[in-house]
Structure formats: structure tokens, C-alpha cells
């Protein structure tokens, strides 16, 4: 039986097909590839776990690509040049942290959690930059007609929760507490963050499709 977050992933993927309708901006179509990539990675990761093959490398690479994608899309939603530059700087910082961590600290043997704690924190900062622009906009479009807001809110919830969870996970590891003791709660919380992200993405895709130019 499919897990709840898998259902949410599939929903986001199916809704992303709507982005190929006529009149939808080409940039949004990237989300189809993103959701497809999420499903492929999820499927491959699960298969590797069942086959007792370590999947750390796969997730380290996938999370890097996803975080870059999140930061890139937040940047594309911004209109102000200085804010775009700031998010680009955050993206550059994340890439640098990822390379340094991969080369000198966590390497390829374990999941690069340090990179993603920093990466998702940077993502939360990028989302806050978007929110600042969002509340300063001189338009009177209601929130439910703003797909970018839903996408960024999905990123924000997912990024902030994941960053906190991994920080806690690293803290418990430092305190030498085995993860068996809190694994179930960790997974549940992580699932809620994932479900929030994919459901908000699905909602955003439907809004984009409804708002398409005829």
C-alpha cells in the first residue's frame, strides 16, 4: 500500500500534467520534470533499500538537485533585481557548502545531512525574501489566485521542518542516542512536511492551469 506522502507525490505529478495546457507559461512546465524526478528517486530509493543497497549517495545527489531547483524557482518568482541576486547568492552558498561537505566532511559514505540543514535553512531565508516581496506588491490579487505563493509556502514548510528535524537528528547523534528511539516520530513528522509540500504544489498547479491564458 502506498504511503500518504507517496499519494501526495503522485497527486502533484498528475496535477503537473495540467501545466502542459495551452497558455501556461513555459517556466512552470519544469515542475513536471521535477515531480517525475521525485517519483523516480523515491521508487529507486525504496528498491535499493529493499535490495539492501545503500541509497545514501542517491539521496545526497537528489536532495542537492531538489534544493538547487527550489532556490532557482524562488528566484524566478521574484521581480526585484536585488532580491533575485540575494537568492542567487544563497544558491551559490549552498553549492559551496555542499561541495565542501562532500569533499572534506561527510563524504559519500553517509547522507550529507549538514549540507541539507544549511541548504533548507537557506531555502527558508529565500522563502522569507519572497514573502517580503509578496506583502509589498502593489496588486490586489487574492492569495488563492497566486500559485507562486502556494509553491513557496510548500517549500517553506518543507524546508523549515526538514532543517529542524535534521538538526535534532544530528543533536541526538552527537548525544549518542540511537535513532531507533525516535525513528517513528521522525518519519511521521517528515511525512507531514512532504505531504504539505506536494499538496501545496498540486494546488498551485491547478491554480496555474485555471489562470492560463486562453
Amino acid at each position, binding site marked *: 500500500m502506498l504511503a500518504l506522502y507517496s499519494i501526495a507525490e503522485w497527486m502533484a505529478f498528475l496535477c503537473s500534467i495540467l501545466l502542459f495546457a495551452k497558455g501556461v507559461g513555459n517556466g512552470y512546465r519544469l515542475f513536471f520534470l521535477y515531480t517525475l524526478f521525485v517519483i523516480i528517486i523515491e521508487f529507486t530509493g525504496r528498491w535499493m533499500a529493499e535490495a539492501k543497497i545503500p541509497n545514501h549517495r542517491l539521496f545526497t545527489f537528489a536532495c542537492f538537485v531538489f534544493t538547487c531547483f527550489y532556490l532557482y524557482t524562488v528566484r524566478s518568482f521574484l521581480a526585484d533585481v536585488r532580491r533575485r541576486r540575494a537568492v542567487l547568492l544563497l544558491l551559490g552558498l549552498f553549492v559551496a557548502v555542499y561541495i565542501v561537505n562532500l569533499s572534506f566532511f561527510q563524504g559519500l559514505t553517509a547522507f550529507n545531512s549538514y549540507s541539507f540543514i544549511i541548504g533548507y535553512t537557506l531555502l527558508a531565508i529565500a522563502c522569507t525574501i519572497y*514573502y517580503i516581496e*509578496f*506583502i*509589498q*506588491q*502593489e*496588486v*490586489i*490579487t*487574492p*492569495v488563492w489566485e497566486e500559485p507562486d505563493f502556494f509553491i513557496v*509556502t510548500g517549500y*517553506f*514548510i518543507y524546508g*523549515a*521542518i526538514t532543517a*529542524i*528535524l535534521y538538526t*535534532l537528528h544530528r543533536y*541526538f547523534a552527537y*548525544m549518542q*542516542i540511537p535513532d531507533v*528511539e*525516535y525513528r517513528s*516520530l*521522525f518519519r511521521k*513528522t517528515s511525512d*507531514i512536511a512532504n505531504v504539505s509540500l506536494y499538496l501545496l504544489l498540486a494546488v498551485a498547479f491547478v491554480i496555474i492551469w485555471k489562470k492560463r491564458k486562453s
Partner: protein
Amino acid sequence: MEKEKVISIFFQVAVIAFTLIVAFVTVIVYIRFKRNQDIRQKRSMEKEFAEQLKQSRIEVQEQTFGQIGKELHDNVSQLLSTSRMLLGLTERSLVNPPDTLLSANATLGQAISELRSLSRSMDKDWLEQFSFADNLQTEITRINAGGLVKADCSLQGIPLLASGEQIILFRIVQEAIQNALKHGRPASISIQSRVTEAGHLITVTDDGAGSSTVPPDAAYPGAGMGITNMKLRTATLGGRISWHPGTGSGTIVSIHLPHQTPPI
């Protein structure tokens, strides 16, 4: 650390994190909502202010017209009447008054009549007693009385407007006629009004030297202020105005007005 304690810490952190994140997003949505309200209110106030500004400009113009009209009637017209009376006395005191004197007397009489008609058309109080059609007919008669230009009007459907709005429409048409007379030197002017799908279309067509140069500011050099007023007045009525070259020569001024609700 005990297992329960670890779970408790994890649970508390997760709950606090979720609560804070949801609260943060809610605050963002609320701020945006309030900002939307403020922007809406600001725009509505700006619109209202612009409307009031337009209205007051028109009112000031109407007052100025009225004052000029009164001045023409009470002062200039009286002076001319006195002059005519003196001419009449001179005419009667002479056994054989010269033709030039008779002609001057007749021309002065015509000028007084023209001036009275003009002063009446500028008086808002006088205009309010009549409909747009009556006012227009008087204007046509006045132009035809000059004998230089042949004017006619065909009104097949007149917009249902309140008296104040009828004056605004009349002023637009009056300005269009004056522009044609002053700058186009036409042989004829035709005013037509008809019902269209979108509302009413009032056209002022002349066969003068308005030529094919549109926009009108170029067609009638020196008519800039009048054109601006015409645009402003048409906007006040919720319509739009356009200028087109006439067939052959001259200019067609088209005033498009939306369907109006009958005045109460």
C-alpha cells in the same frame, strides 16, 4: 537519556516548529489581505478625487461661461443697443440717411441678436430649462443665421441624460462645432445622433479644411485646450471621443456614449 524523554523532546520541537511555521504563513496572508484592502481603498479614493477634480473643473468652466454670458448680455449687449438707438436717432434726424448708415444700423441689429443668442447659450440656468435637442437646434439656427455656414442636425435617438449631463454633452458638441468653424472654415456642418449596440453615437461632421490630419490637435492648430476639455467632458459621461478624417475633406468628431439609466 530515556526513550520517553527523547520522544517528548522530539514531539515538542516538532509541534512548536509546525505551529510557528503555520502562524508565520498566516501572518503573511493576513498582512497581504490588509494591504490589498488598503490598496483598494487608496485606488477608490484616487478615483473619487479624480472624478471630483473633473467635476469641479467643469463647474468652474460653466461658471465662467455663465459670467461671460451675463456680461455679454448685461454690458456689451446694452452698449450695442444704446449705439443702435443713437444710430436710429441719427437716421431719423436726417432727411435722406445714407445707405451706409442704414446698412450699419441693420448690421448692428443682427450683431445684437447674435450676441443675445450667444449669451443665452452660455448661461447654464437658461440651458437647464431646455433639452439637449432644443439647445442644439438653437445653436443650429444661430449658425445658419450667419449665412456663411449651412448647419443641420438629425437626432435619431438622444441619450437619456440628467440635465447636468445634457449640458456637458451640449458643451462637447458646441466645442466641436466651434472648432470646425474656427479652424476648418467649412461650408456645412452636420450633427447626427443615433443608437448603436454599445449605446449612442453623436457625430459632428464638417467639410472644411480640417484635412485628414488626426489627431485633432494637429487638425485644428491652437485647439489644444478645447480638445482636452472635450475629452474630459466625454470621460465624465463615461464615454469616449475620437476624431477621423471626413470623406473627401473635413473632420468627423464621434462621441460614443454608453447606454444610460434614465434620469430619476
